[in-house]
């Protein structure tokens, strides 16, 4: 563990596949995991589409990177937040999203699903308390 631990927030606002933002964000999250920081991800606006279950890209000839989200718990990502209003206006519910488990190998503490739906006030609070925000 490095001496200074900062709270990193990765803020995702783009749908997958139409642009490269979602994939690039995921790459940076995975790289960042190597630095033992407190990492959180937030999905708002079209970013919520990144977590939709059942993505199958065989027909469009692009890599399906959605299975990677389910492994984020293994990359030191402890919390994933999804904006409630963004889901609602897109006709989505939490049941449409992937479940992402988390486990601390040392303490054996487990969280079945680290995906949490939050309202705008809580989302704003989380942005405020972060030391660094990466926007995608």
């Amino acid at each position, binding site marked *: 563990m490095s001496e200074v631990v900062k709270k990193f927030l990765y803020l995702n606002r*783009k*749908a*997958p*596949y*139409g*642009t490269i933002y979602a994939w690039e964000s995921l790459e940076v999250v995975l790289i960042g995991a190597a630095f033992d920081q407190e990492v959180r991800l937030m999905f708002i*606006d*079209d970013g919520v*589409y990144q977590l*939709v*279950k*059942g*993505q*199958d*890209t*065989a*027909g*469009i000839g*692009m890599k*399906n990177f*959605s299975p990677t989200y389910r492994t984020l718990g293994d990359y030191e990502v402890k919390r994933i937040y999804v904006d409630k209003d963004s889901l609602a*206006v*897109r*006709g*989505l519910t939490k049941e*449409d999203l992937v479940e992402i488990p988390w486990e601390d190998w040392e303490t054996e503490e487990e969280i079945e699903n680290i995906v949490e739906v939050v309202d705008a006030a809580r989302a704003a609070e989380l942005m405020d308390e972060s030391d660094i925000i990466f926007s995608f």
Partner: protein
Amino acid sequence: MSILHTVNKSPFERNSLDSCLKFASQGAAVLMIEDGVYAAMTGTGVETQVKAALDRLSVYVLGPDLSARGISEDRLIEGIQVVDYAGFVDLAAKNDKVQAWL
């Protein structure tokens, strides 16, 4: 002159769909592709707008782009027709020109 309109942007991020539906004339074909396919789902904030468009336009959505985004066909607004790439080509050939709302 018949026009095939394509929309490839999410209706929640850009106004491509708005403009397309505003300027597409009676009987025109509208094909949702790439991030444009999100507008074809039921229960969204643009559902009313898309349903109203179905009264005067033929609306299509590209199947492979739906699958890529995890949208199953039972989530689509009734009246929207799913086409594959060959269907896309047929639409382009059948209409006099293609107008892409980027």
